[in-house]
């Protein structure tokens, strides 16, 4: 008989709620160290230019200025996957908004005033803004020295003397032959603009250069150990000399996954004689200087048989990496191995190009390329279905991955992967698919329904790992030490649930402190890719088992009972034969003391760890291999109403189904889904950077970059969480954090066709774009 769960799967409230609601949670922005300096930046007004001269004498002379740095003195190339970025622009600027000079001063005011005194002379260079044009042999090279850059060998393939930072290929079967033999074919192109993460807390880092080649960093980051590693490599310091603290983080969404402002804060501190230096992005800099989500141009070609089976699929993805592609290359890679959607396709050909342009650079953003590629794929599925005269849900039904199929990288699909078909059927039923929408009460409004599938696996190195330590306390409770960051997604609450379940103690006795510190917290790769609950959860299970084994060993001696004859419940260890003879953990956690004073054991500290299992590099020519620890599948269905006079869309209902494997905390999981869907609405309807012809960013701020607000949340949202267990997942769980956002635009695009009979292939689907297309249809020019 399986034991009934006390905490896992229960709607436990967030552990951080009280700190956040009362305002007692402290963030890096709040940090103020004695003697701390503040930083202001001089930004490039040009998208592409040579820095001829920088005159900073007057700035240096300003009282209160402690350090003035330019790129020239900073000969460092940084990056996790692709070392293509300097701390400050060196010799050339590659996007408008790039930091050229940094000034640390006693106050932010002085630093800002000093920036006004800096004179930078530029010589304009050619500008390349469209990544498709950037692929031309004659295009201006954003990185002429690309061939010299260090990068992760065997995983990424930059093309020397081009703007292509990475080219990922997937080759399965024979596309050309199958496409030619198909009964029906389709070619369609799609576009996603670059967008911003918009975390509540902008990027901010405080660093202090310490004597003895040591440094201490406080930063708003998703990845304390990656920051430590990259800083130690970049500045050639022993890892232990770099100490990284991450207090509460006000949202990340992927934007704080890699290195951010930490190197700049450190070099400023070094230049200022070791005074701590804070570098905090303004909201405008968060848009215009710090990384965004990449834009994407995609072309999808599908060949299908008359009976609705896809026989061939080709995708060409051209990613607009912007000026730097450190994280972008990995998005290009993930997008390729996921690049055909959750479908069984025997003949598949994918090219994913990550291309430099003179724009703000891209990085990870919730969904890691999947919202973008599935915008094209899931729109193309609807187009193909209609070409075949088939219902879009039925067309998908006939092609979804099922037991016995192989993915496009040759991975066997099993029932342990979850059930994409069940996701589809769940949302179709909930939206009453097949029944046309009721007409609107207003004659000028039309309604429509649409649906879309989604899938994603964690995009991570094959050796991704994490560790957990549980220290048991005098009161029989425990502290969990981790360095994965809970920046709002709720993982710490879930880890507490798992620890309480495994240790069999009340959850109130399990604590996690919202401050990671690489001096004390054990290793975790990065908090990204929807893998923290999965990997951290597994490590907690192991650490708890380690604690219980230690308790068992001491209790066995204390009770004079064989270890295997002991059991645990409610914070008490007891002989199975006589539960009344139990000893509370509190009498064992620091060691057990017999009546005569003799003591045994000692403080109990459990250790658990987890490393990705069985992943392989992908073959450079065919992309075949095992890239994914697990896949999460899902679907959205949406019903919308369009005002044909203004182009305004109202979401009447949006239904989301995700196969979570096991819902560890329904309250938090539903919160994730609602938040993700609303964030997806942002990408679908409103968000997108606007640049002028010279590459200047026109809507870098909240006045003209609109994200959904409380008033924009749909009135009806439904979440369906399926539980087809993931083998190897903690309690059968798989990640669901990024997924709710993916394919929200696709479902809405498909519903727009249903409502208006117009194909939309470009995001965002803002009111103006919709009205323009309606008018074109009514009055063709």
């Amino acid at each position, binding site marked *: 008989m399986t034991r009934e769960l006390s905490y896992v799967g229960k709607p436990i409230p967030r552990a951080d709620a009280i700190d956040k609601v009362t*305002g*007692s949670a*402290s963030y890096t*922005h*709040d*940090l*103020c*160290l*004695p003697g701390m300096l503040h930083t202001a930046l001089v930004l490039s007004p040009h998208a592409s230019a040579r820095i001829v001269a920088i005159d900073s004498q007057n700035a240096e002379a300003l009282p209160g200025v402690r350090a003035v740095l330019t790129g020239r003195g900073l000969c460092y190339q940084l990056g996790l996957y692709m070392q293509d970025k300097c701390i400050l622009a060196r010799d050339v600027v590659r996007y408008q908004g790039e930091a050229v000079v940094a000034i640390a001063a006693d*106050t*932010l*005011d002085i630093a800002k005033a000093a920036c006004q005194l800096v004179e930078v002379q530029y010589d304009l260079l050619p500008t390349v803004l469209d990544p498709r044009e950037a692929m031309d042999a004659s295009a201006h090279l954003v990185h002429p020295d690309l061939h010299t850059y260090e990068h992760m060998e065997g995983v990424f393939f930059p093309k020397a003397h081009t703007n292509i930072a990475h080219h990922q290929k997937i080759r399965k079967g024979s596309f050309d032959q199958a496409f030619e033999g198909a009964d029906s074919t389709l070619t369609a192109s799609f576009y996603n603009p670059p967008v911003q993460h918009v975390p509540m807390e902008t990027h901010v880092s405080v660093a202090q250069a310490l004597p003895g080649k040591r440094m201490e960093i*406080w930063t708003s980051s998703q990845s304390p150990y990656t920051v430590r590693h990259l800083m130690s490599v970049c500045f050639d310091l022993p890892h232990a000399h770099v*100490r990284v*603290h991450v207090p509460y983080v006000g949202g990340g969404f992927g934007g704080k996954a890699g290195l951010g402002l930490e190197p700049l804060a450190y070099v400023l501190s070094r230049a200022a004689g070791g005074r701590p230096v804070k570098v*905090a992005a303004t909201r405008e800099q968060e848009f215009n200087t710090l990384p965004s989500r990449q834009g994407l141009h995609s072309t999808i070609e599908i060949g299908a048989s008359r009976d609705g089976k896809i026989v061939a699929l080709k995708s060409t993805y051209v990613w607009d990496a912007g000026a730097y592609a450190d994280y972008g290359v990995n998005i290009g890679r993930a997008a390729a191995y996921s690049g055909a959607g959750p479908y069984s396709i025997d003949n598949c050909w994918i090219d994913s190009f990550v291309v430099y342009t003179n724009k703000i650079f891209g990085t990870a953003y919730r969904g890691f390329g999947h919202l973008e590629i599935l915008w094209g794929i899931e729109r193309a599925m609807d187009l193909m279905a209609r070409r075949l005269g088939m219902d879009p849900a039925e067309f998908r039904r006939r092609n979804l991955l099922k037991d016995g199929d192989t993915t496009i990288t040759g991975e066997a699909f099993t029932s342990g992967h979850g059930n994409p078909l069940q996701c589809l059927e769940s949302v179709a039923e909930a939206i009453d698919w097949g029944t046309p929408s009721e007409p609107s009460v207003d004659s000028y409004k039309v309604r429509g329904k649409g649906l879309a599938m989604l899938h994603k696996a964690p995009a991570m190195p094959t050796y991704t790992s994490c560790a957990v330590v549980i220290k048991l306390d005098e009161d029989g409770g425990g502290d969990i030490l981790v360095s994965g960051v809970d920046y709002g997604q709720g993982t710490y609450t879930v880890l507490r649930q798992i620890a309480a379940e495994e240790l069999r103690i009340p959850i109130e006795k399990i604590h996690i402190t919202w*401050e990671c*510190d690489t*001096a*004390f917290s054990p290793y975790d790769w990065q908090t990204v890719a929807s893998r923290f609950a999965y990997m951290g959860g597994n490590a907690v299970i192991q650490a708890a088992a380690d604690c219980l084994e230690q308790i068992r060993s001491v209790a066995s001696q204390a009770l004079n009972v064989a270890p295997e004859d002991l059991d645990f419940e409610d914070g008490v260890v007891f002989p199975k034969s006589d539960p009344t003879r139990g000893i509370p953990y509190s009498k064992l956690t620091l060691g057990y003391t017999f009546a005569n004073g003799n003591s045994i054991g000692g403080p109990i500290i459990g250790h658990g760890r987890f490393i990705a299992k069985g992943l392989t590099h992908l073959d450079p020519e065919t992309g075949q291999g095992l890239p994914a620890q697990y896949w999460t599948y899902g679907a959205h269905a949406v019903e919308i109403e369009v005002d044909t*006079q*203004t182009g305004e869309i109202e979401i009447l209902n949006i239904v989301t189904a995700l196969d979570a494997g096991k819902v560890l905390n329904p309250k938090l999981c539903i919160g994730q889904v609602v938040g993700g869907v609303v964030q997806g609405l942002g990408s679908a*309807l*409103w968000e997108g950077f*606007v640049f002028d012809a010279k590459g200047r960013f*026109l*809507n870098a701020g909240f*006045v*003209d970059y*609109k994200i*959904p*607000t*409380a*008033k*924009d949340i749909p009135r009806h949202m439904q979440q369906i969480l399926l539980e087809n267990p993931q083998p190897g997942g903690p309690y059968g769980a798989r990640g669901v954090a990024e997924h709710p956002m993916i394919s929200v635009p696709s479902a809405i695009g498909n519903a727009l066709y249903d409502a208006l009979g117009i194909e939309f292939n470009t995001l965002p689907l*803002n*009111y*103006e774009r919709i*009205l*323009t297309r309606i*008018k074109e249809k009514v009055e063709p020019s």
Partner: protein
Amino acid sequence: MRSLFCFSGFKFVRFQRGFIVLGDFEYKRIRSIDEGCHCLAEAAGKAAVLAGGTDLLVEIRNHLKSPKVLIDCKNVDALKQVHVDRSGSAIGASVPLNRLIENRAFHTTYPALATALLSIGTYQLRSRATLAGNICNASPAADSAPVLLVLDASVEVVGIRGPRSIPIRDFFVGVKKTVLTPDEIVVSIQIPQRADLHTTFLKQQRIRGHDLAVVNMAGAYSPGERILRLAIGSCAPTPVLLEPIKVDVGNVASFAGHVAEIVLSSVSPISDVRASSGYRNAILPVLVKRILHNLLAEGGAS
């Protein structure tokens, strides 16, 4: 300011809420209107009046304005007053929008104005922002302006030469420009009360949440006189008030077309990052139609 000590490793780390110094200016908190006029006159154009500050402080932060003196008028009793009654109303210059929106008499007397005010910024901003500030900022997109125009409001100001009353239709002279002289301070907005008027305000924005108007429009209809007054925002350097239009209730559809033509010939929308001129031109007739539908349906029923 709040601070706390948090033990972190081997040293005490102090967390402290940050603050931003806006700029180098003198801050004066005036006690009377006269004092304000004198300060303004003395500063000879280098001063700015601070009421809610929701536009001004952002402009100072972004270096769009750099006043030498900031004259805070929030402490002058005369500017804090709200009178709403049958003969007309006076809204003090430092009254926050939320005080108006939450004033039942104001809401029932000027429903269209209340709607317009409710569409300005967010709740938090409306706790500070003022009606006088909205018009003194003189944005072409000011949401209160079209309603004040169709209601024939006036701006009561005092300068060193004494008080004057400026009809709102004469108040705006360009983007962010008004007829106020550097020594003048707005005391109140006077709004005549005409029980016979039906009014409505519509705003096209990009999202449902807070946003600047892509186009905004207000209409006031007097069923007795069969006169329509219409004002449009965000489509010209200033909000635009049309000449009164005699309403043809016989054929509403063709009348709406006629009004839309007048509107389109009276405005000159530009393309910007918010919307193209084409979209604004497409929205204008839609708002005209909807305003007429609202007003004439109401008006017809009376």
